[in-house]
């Protein structure tokens, strides 16, 4: 019996076809329906609700809320924090990923676990850690006083908090790219007389480019949306230094719903375009 099926390709393919057909019947449609319903309720409906509510009183109300100077300032602050954080991580993240992939030394596995740490630390705790260091009674309070640079409740603290929260993205994005890179290309370049820098810029860097761009956009998007850590280190009550997320939070508390909803929508859409767009680019780049 077994033999006759195996020796008869026509029969075998008929059986396979009938099995495959059976599988795709009504149970398949039920599963597809359940998944589509779930995604619609959980993800699409909230997104549509926010869009509808932001424009409840027309486009004019949205534009009016965006043209208030402190709203614009909050966007500006967020953008600056994002840019500074991205530049720091682009340099140091690349170095950490490089050292992790190319060097062999004791404690290397420790680095691997440590890099993921911010994923497990609540943003509130991240902000609180910095407060313990730089706050009024913090460990580094004497240093803060001596230099006169305010960290807590000020711009530098918000940058440090965002740096902590976004640390893994660049490194995690680059490690697999570096691991897949064939080092023979570098050796060939060295053989042809290129020095270390030339090899890096002309051989290694072009291969890392797409990974870097994606890592940078992920870091940037995450930095723009950071809330908990910035709220704690920025001083929730004072609210002098506004970022977009802090503005949304305060606007909700003061029941300025149109302002809060439209800022939330703008921030959400911007991050979305950033991440999904660079993902497309990366797939094309490969």
């Amino acid at each position, binding site marked *: 019996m077994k033999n006759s099926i195996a020796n008869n390709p026509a029969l075998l393919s008929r059986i396979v076809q009938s099995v495959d057909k059976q599988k795709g019947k009504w149970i398949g449609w039920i599963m597809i329906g*359940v998944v589509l319903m779930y995604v619609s309720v959980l993800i699409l409906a909230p997104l549509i609700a926010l869009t509808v509510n932001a424009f409840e009183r027309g486009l004019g109300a949205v534009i009016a809320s965006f043209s208030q100077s402190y709203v614009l300032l909050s966007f500006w602050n967020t953008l600056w924090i994002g840019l500074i954080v991205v530049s720091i991580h682009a340099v140091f993240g690349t170095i950490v990923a490089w050292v992790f992939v190319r060097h062999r030394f004791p404690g290397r596995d420790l680095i691997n676990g440590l890099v993921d740490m911010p994923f497990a630390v609540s943003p509130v705790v991240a902000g609180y850690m910095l407060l313990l260091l730089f706050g009024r009674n913090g460990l580094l309070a004497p240093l803060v006083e001596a230099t006169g640079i305010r960290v807590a409740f000020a711009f530098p603290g918000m940058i440090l908090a965002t740096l902590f929260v976004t640390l893994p993205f660049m490194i995690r994005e680059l490690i697999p790219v570096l691991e897949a890179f064939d080092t023979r290309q570098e050796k060939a370049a060295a053989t042809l007389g290129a020095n270390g820098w030339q090899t890096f810029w002309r051989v290694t860097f072009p291969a890392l480019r797409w990974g870097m761009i994606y890592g940078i956009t992920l870091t940037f998007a995450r930095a723009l949306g950071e809330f908990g850590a910035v709220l704690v280190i920025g001083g929730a009550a004072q609210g002098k230094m506004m970022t977009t997320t802090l503005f949304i939070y305060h606007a909700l508390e003061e029941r300025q719903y149109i302002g809060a909803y439209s800022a939330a929508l703008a921030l959400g859409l911007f991050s979305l375009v950033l991440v999904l767009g660079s993902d497309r680019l990366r797939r094309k780049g490969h």
Partner: protein
Amino acid sequence: MNTLLAGNPKTKTTGTPLPWGRWGLRSVAISYLIVMLVIPLLVILQDGMREGLVELWRQVTLPIAWHALKLTLWTSAMMVVLNTIMGTLTAFVLVRYEFPGKTILNAIIDLPLAIPTLVTGVMLVVLFGPQEAIGSWLKEQFDTSIIFAPPGIIMALLFLTFPFVVRSVQPVLLELDLAQERAAATLGAGGWTIFWRIILPPLTLPILTGALLSFARAIGEFGSIVIVAGNIPLVSQTAAVYVFGEVESENRLGASAVSIAMVAIAFSLMMAANYLRKLSKKGSPEEIE
């Protein structure tokens, strides 16, 4: 020079031939991680322990703190169960079926990763809030509220962690050999038997990895929850929101103690997920690089 080229391509060498460049890079990388991660973590450990372990435990088990931690854990656990089922189902549907809107669905999965969590909270309040259409209808018909209550917390967590299980299961499902299922069906196995005995076993590790990662991610969530659940002690206050309140009221010991508890739980969950991921990589020797 030729010996360089003849070397085994697998051996990693540094791109910078100078030894000082190599040591320089390494110390830059390590100091960066120490300054950014190790020092803040040590500071919070030291602050929580300064009155001793007994006091740390007392702070964690104070009624409001204890309730907040328990609420965080059980809402996260509920999310993990739902997310595991729906995530696996979504991955299965995406890999095995063709239907209109499939590419859009595949893109939507990653949407929660791109949207700031505060915005997620705002979106859910707008949809299910007590003054909104659906929220008030639910209140009238079933006397349940989603916002400012545990269901809202679970929904927010489900939104945030939706990609984790899907993206962990999807690649493994793609690699599965259909021939095994066909063979089972030819031998008379029903759909249910095929699912339990052929499809599910190789998916166990990726499903568990995704589940643990979403659990770890959920423990510390703040942005969406503070909007969706508010800050009502003993009702809808989660651990992260509790820490925020204690920081604001300058109760350092309480804030540090619950922070340490949260970090410890989330970090062990994540380490377990990493271990499982390594395990499943070892399990597939024919993996192509």
